[in-house]
């Protein structure tokens, strides 16, 4: 495939939609953020405003709980990621070491072969 790299990049890097679950969670957190300093807009019908205010602490608490649960889950996942990354690095490090030790052996071997070729019968 012979294609312009920049076109390939643009096509491959089109924005990706997050999961529907995450979208709902994000909207809930943003719209019910208890630290939002802006006053809620007044709407026609004061009762609507009051009913939203009643649910606000519940939604905020739910958001905090979800956040804490997410945080724990993320921490576990991060530790697992770090552990797997460390494992990969160990394997790679030992592979590189082994490769260079082998290189030394190969050089010694080839020098031994040259010595034998140049000095037959020794």
């Amino acid at each position, binding site marked *: 495939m012979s294609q312009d790299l920049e076109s390939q990049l643009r096509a491959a890097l089109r924005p990706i939609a997050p999961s529907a679950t995450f979208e709902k969670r994000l909207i809930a957190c943003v719209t019910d953020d208890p630290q939002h300093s802006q006053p809620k807009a007044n709407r026609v019908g004061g009762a609507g405003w009051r009913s939203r205010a009643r649910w606000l602490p519940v939604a905020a608490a739910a958001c905090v709980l979800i956040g804490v649960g997410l945080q724990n889950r993320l921490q576990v996942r991060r530790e697992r990621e770090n552990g797997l990354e460390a494992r990969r690095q*160990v394997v790679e490090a*030992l*592979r590189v070491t082994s490769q*260079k030790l*082998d290189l*030394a052996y190969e050089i*010694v071997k080839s020098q031994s072969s040259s010595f*034998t070729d140049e000095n037959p019968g020794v």
Partner: protein
Amino acid sequence: MKHPRLKILLALLAPALAWAAPNPRLVLPDFPALVQKATQAVTITLDPALLSLAARFLDGNDPQDAATREIIKGLQGIYVRSYTFDRDSAYSQEDIDAVRKQLAAPGWNRLVETHSKKTHANVDIYIMLDDNKAIGLAVIASEARQFTIVNIVGAIDLEKLHKLEGQFGVPKLDLDASKAPH
């Protein structure tokens, strides 16, 4: 308390004695200039905490993982700097000399010094011994388009490491055939 004065003296001298003891840990720079030029760069810094973390994620039921775990059991650190370039002589001897100077310090013994005229590859292997046991390993490999430094701190078992060769995708070398004729 027996010999309290001796104990106090030893306690006072401990830092000096620790300083005088050979240290198998090399100071490896990050070579930022080489990273910029390299087409591939491997920088690995595994201290005791990371080695311990890695060991937890090595599967004891997998033969390679089990062998790897066995090797890293007595180690305190693994440090690798490896740079690959797309042309010959992209790095200078000065880059290597800064590390080589550290290997002239007491305690380090050069185990192997190899040079290939054909491929212009040099591989030097150094080992640090304490009471006839290896407590440190250093490998410096300079090839036409690659430069690698490995420093392993701790009780490294070269035989076990050699046995792992085939499992890392590196073909096993017939050691018997490599013995020099006599």
